[in-house]
């Protein structure tokens, strides 16, 4: 998603304000309404699961809030988080870091800055999510390629064939069984391990017999 998208989708955001009902919460809520977000303020944080929240403003104080942490844990997908902080003391800053907020809105809340903090937090959140997805994808790619290599080695050793032939054999098998190359590679590795274990274990158990026989 590019930056223009962030601005275009502002009005569709489901925003939650987790902050005691006071002047700051009121000011923030009104500005969110002006911007046109679907916004509501709930305090204390609801114990029941709610509709998926896209973005949450959370009060961050010197003491970590358990109810807020519990609420966030219950969300299927972690929403974009903006910390509402009245102090810049190290304990508050520490809690901002621990919560992993995507942005901070200082208190007292003023209408200015709310929109920029939302846009910037969304950008950071989206980029983080994009990177997470990419990392997961790359991780599984590396794993798959390791598996494939291992499976190829097994086939090459057992059948005395070239790497290219081994690969084609795996791919052919995958197509036959309507499975992925990785799944076939996985089965080959597992079967090999199983066969290996079957051969090795009795040997280990028969060692003394063999030895005595030799003697």
């Amino acid at each position, binding site marked *: 998603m590019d930056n223009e998208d962030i601005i275009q989708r502002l009005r569709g955001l489901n925003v939650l304000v987790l902050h005691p009902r006071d002047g700051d919460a009121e000011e923030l809520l*009104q*500005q969110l309404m*002006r*911007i*046109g977000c679907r916004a509501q303020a709930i305090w204390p944080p609801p114990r029941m699961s709610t509709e998926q929240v896209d973005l949450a403003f959370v009060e961050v104080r010197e003491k970590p809030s358990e109810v807020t942490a519990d609420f966030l844990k219950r969300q299927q997908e972690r929403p974009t988080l903006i910390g509402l902080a009245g102090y810049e003391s190290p304990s508050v800053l520490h809690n901002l870091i621990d919560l992993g907020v995507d942005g901070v809105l200082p208190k007292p809340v003023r*209408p200015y800055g709310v*929109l920029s903090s939302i846009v910037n937090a969304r950008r950071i959140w989206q980029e983080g999510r994009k990177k997470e997805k990419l990392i997961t994808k790359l991780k599984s790619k590396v794993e798959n390629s390791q598996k494939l290599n291992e499976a190829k080695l097994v086939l090459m050793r057992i059948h005395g064939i070239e790497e290219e032939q081994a690969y084609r054999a795996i791919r052919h098998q995958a197509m036959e069984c309507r499975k992925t190359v990785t799944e076939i590679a996985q089965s080959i590795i597992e079967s090999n391990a199983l066969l290996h274990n079957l051969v090795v274990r009795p040997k280990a158990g028969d060692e003394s017999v063999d030895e005595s026989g030799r003697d």
Partner: protein
Amino acid sequence: MKGYTDKPWSVGILFSQTGVTAIIEQSQLNGALLAIDEINEAGGIEGRPIDPVILDPQSEPARYRELAEQLLADPDINVIFGCYMSSSRKEVLPVVERHNGLLFYPTLYEGFEYSPNVIYGGAAPNQNSLPLAMYLMENYGSRFYFVGSDYIYPRESNRVMRNIVRQGGGEVVAEEYVDLNAGPEDFQAILEDIARVEPDVIFSTVVGTGTVNFYRAYHASGGDGRKRPIASLTTNEAEVAAMGPEAALGHITAAPYFRNLPGEANSVFLERYRAKFGEVRTVTSCCEAAYFQVHLFANALRLTGTTSADPLRRVLRGAEYEAPQGRIKIDPDNNHTYLQSRIARVTVDGEYRLEREATRPIKPDPYLAVPALNDWANAPIRKE
């Protein structure tokens, strides 16, 4: 009527009487002064007259800040009427917020602002850009050429317009900017480009003296408003008078108010304006906005008896007024104003003739990032 023994209510006035935006700001100043006269002639507020302290920021944004500081340093002054360009409003804003004063801003602007210390009296883009774009695409075509002065309002205004034009399947063929002080020669290259590109319509966000220079240069280069009009949200009666009817012919403006609107409130307004200033050539939509904002303030002051921002704001939110443009109302959600939405075109005699209008005031939506063509559809229109 009481013989004013009490101290007057002092209010600050910050409209430039010199510099690049002097034509339009002088018109706003006149509107404000006319309203103050009316209020004082009717006995003032609680028997005390309104006393305008008028300073001239000379169309220099930095001067607005200095003069706003100077005004609000006076313990008797807590309210300012003023500002035309967004750049000047941005200078004054931190000052009125710090002093918890109140700025009445009688000018259309690009939106994306809310301050509890400002009452916005001009149109937001959803009240004028949207209707204008629809009208142009229906009547002239979808190839738009953008020309603007180089500061925030034109750039943001063009961004809004580009969005709408694209949604309507149209195309922005060029987007050019000139200096705020642009002279006739600065438009030469752009006019040549327009002749070459042949757009269906020119959307101008040129403001100040550049407006007169641009329309005149367009006319001199053979441009004809009846065939390929320049459409604008700011060009007004005062500038049309300054450029002359030949240069203005056929061009289009979208605004909440035009001088020759029918209606009792407007004819009374014009009569009094003529009596005070000897003419009505300089009456514009921004002048009308300054006029009704002073009346809104006076009505609020009658209820609060103080010029402190907090009590004033409380009664101003939701306040209504029968303005020359028709009934208007301050939106309690955002301090902007429900306004009429109209489109008019200059005829051979140099007068705006109404082409289309919304049948009721339109709610301001200053944070509309992506205007959709159908947003205006819920406001029925009346075609002339």
